[in-house]
């Protein structure tokens, strides 16, 4: 099928199979902040904005992102600068694989007026898994940015 997608405010037109996984398409186009972890919607490493809502790119097929607006972490470089700095300062990274997903969920939480409340931050991160840092530093990093 011919696929038209707006990724980070730029229009892309390409040919691909209609049932191709969206996270694969994004990665092949160079948006490698979209990580493929579990490929079944459990780990959240592929979190993207689809029409202004955070979703798992691994659960979408090409058919569903035709004519859609997608934002990946690459498109939020400036907006997430403070959060990124906080992640670095708090050492909220070990292997780094889950980090883009956590940054997206954290950014979404902050965008929606999220407070510096640990429980609420934990709830906002319910779709993201980290297998090495143990979450505490990630939560602390997001809390530091929250007002």
């Amino acid at each position, binding site marked *: 099928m011919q696929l038209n997608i707006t990724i980070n405010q730029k229009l892309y037109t390409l040919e691909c199979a209609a049932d191709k996984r969206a996270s694969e398409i994004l990665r092949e186009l160079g948006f490698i902040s979209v990580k493929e972890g579990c*490929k079944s919607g459990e780990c959240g490493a592929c979190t993207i904005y689809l029409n202004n809502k955070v979703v798992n790119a691994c659960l979408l097929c090409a*058919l569903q992102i035709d004519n859609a607006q997608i934002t990946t972490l690459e498109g939020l470089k400036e907006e997430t600068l403070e959060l990124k700095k906080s992640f670095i300062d708090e050492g909220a990274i070990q292997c780094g694989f889950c980090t883009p997903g956590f940054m997206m969920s954290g950014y979404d939480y902050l965008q929606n007026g999220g407070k510096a409340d640990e429980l609420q931050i934990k709830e906002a991160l319910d779709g993201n898994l980290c297998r090495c840092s143990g979450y505490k530093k990630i939560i602390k990093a997001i809390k530091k940015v929250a007002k």
Partner: protein
Amino acid sequence: MQWIQKDYQSDQKGSKMKCLTAHSLKEAIRLYKQNPNFALLAGGSDLNVQIFNKSIKHEGLIALHPIKKLAKIKCTQKSAKIGALCTISDIIDHESIQKHFPLLLEMQNDFASKQIRNMATIGGNIANASPFSDLIPLLLVLNAKIKVISSKGKRTIALKDLYRGYKKLDLNNEILISIILPIKEHQFYYKKIAPRKRLAIAKLSLAVTKGKKFRVSGSALNSSHRRFKHIEKCFNAKQTSDRALKEAIDQDIAPSTSYRSDPKYKKQVLFNMLKEAIEKLS
């Protein structure tokens, strides 16, 4: 600015499935009539995983997501009409739903993760008919009706009459278009037991509402969703002795043995939860 890559590697790892998109309900009905063996794709949070894994084979797909008409919630004084393509987030963020159906707000905690709540649809959840669905028992105890449509016309059926066995629906090439929830005053009890608090598949769950009468249902307890008639009878007749409840449980549920938890465990936990429910609601 436009970026075009003519020689983009269209790797056909994906099967050569025929994929169609319906832009209106009319088109969906026509396409589904012409291709009755195709699967209907709503949010895709479960169906897509099965397609990518190749664990199910469909001749093709009909994507419904552009049909904006089916993504609306309308509330009157008597009932709420939820379009089949409303996502779980749409539902729990809706003011009237929050006011009249606080039971549905339990999905905020218990339905998958934020990302999945933003894409999974109520219609997809009902039609996917997973025995582990967290949502279906809630709709059953809220006495939901569903509207379906085909080239032959519309009809409304009670949700409790939809399921006819494991992933078997009592539909004849029809498309689920909306869910109707009557607004009636009620109290409720809900609990989900799972290995962790979020993003977990239920070991079992129990939902009970008490209006004029009790309605009881739960997930992961049978191969298909149903109301628990015998337990309801016990509750309504106030026969809630341990023995009566245990007998009713044996008649109402037949959990399959799975790696998730065994039937004996489920029955005991269900018994404890029923005790808790009756205490809360009496």
